[in-house]
């Protein structure tokens, strides 16, 4: 039982507890803050898995971008301190049963599957390699998805402006 193992279980417990609190608290603002902690826990897991680049992207995009956006929309659309109505009891019970069944089923399959792990190869990711492979046009290069995703982001940005724009002709 080394320190790395203990750190993994602490991170895992942190992620799961904050995620459960995030989907069960009745106050929506607290729910957003628990989501924030859960995403930070996932970033810590990436640090633990020795991929600091993904961890920093996670913190920048999720924690710095998406959660802030969600908090903005909470403040724009409702009173943050109000308690939300509790879910219907029958729906909560059936959802919990379905979820527990799903967890048991999937964990059973995972436990039975024999993963063939290669030998002792080190997994160290250099950001140089990521950047070179991302923009490489040869085989196993990712330049096409990179460009497609940039078009997607542009389309999403224009789409957001169009959706959220007020229609001035209707107001006259």
């Amino acid at each position: 039982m080394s320190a790395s193992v203990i750190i993994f279980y602490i991170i895992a417990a942190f992620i799961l507890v904050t995620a459960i609190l995030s989907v069960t608290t009745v106050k929506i603002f607290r729910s957003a803050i628990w989501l924030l902690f859960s995403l930070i826990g996932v970033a810590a897991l990436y640090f633990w898995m020795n991929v600091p680049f993904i961890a920093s992207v996670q913190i920048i995009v999720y924690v710095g971008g998406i959660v802030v956006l969600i908090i903005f929309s909470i403040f724009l659309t409702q009173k943050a301190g109000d308690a939300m109505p509790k879910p219907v009891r029958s729906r909560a019970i059936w959802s919990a049963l379905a979820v527990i069944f799903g967890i048991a089923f999937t964990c059973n399959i995972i436990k039975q599957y024999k993963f063939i792990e290669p030998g002792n190869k080190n997994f160290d990711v250099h950001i140089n390699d990521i950047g070179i492979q991302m923009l490489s046009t040869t085989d196993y290069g990712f330049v096409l998805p990179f460009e497609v995703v940039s078009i997607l982001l542009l389309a999403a940005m224009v789409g957001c402006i169009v959706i959220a724009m007020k229609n001035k002709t209707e107001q006259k």
Partner: protein
Amino acid sequence: MSQIPLTHILFLSTALFFIGVYGLLTRRNMITMLMAIELILNSVNINFIAFNKYLYPEKLNGIFFSIFIITIAAAEAAVAIAIIINLYRSHHSVDAEDASELKY
């Protein structure tokens, strides 16, 4: 470092995925449903990184998939919040049950 077997990380991501599914099924507020979707996407990212690390340590494909998923999740969250704000403007509510014009 590798004393944790791959299956334990997969158990973690499975649990996180189904917690997100629970939130998606029980919540009726659109913003909290969006938050549940973010949890689901995060569990998928954990899976990709774990498979990359444990099964194919000499390649980088799982990392690229995670980067693209994070990008698309950002675009999805932005569009979803634009839709939610527009819905709030027309219905004065972000509850999924209140927006039922297209239901029947």
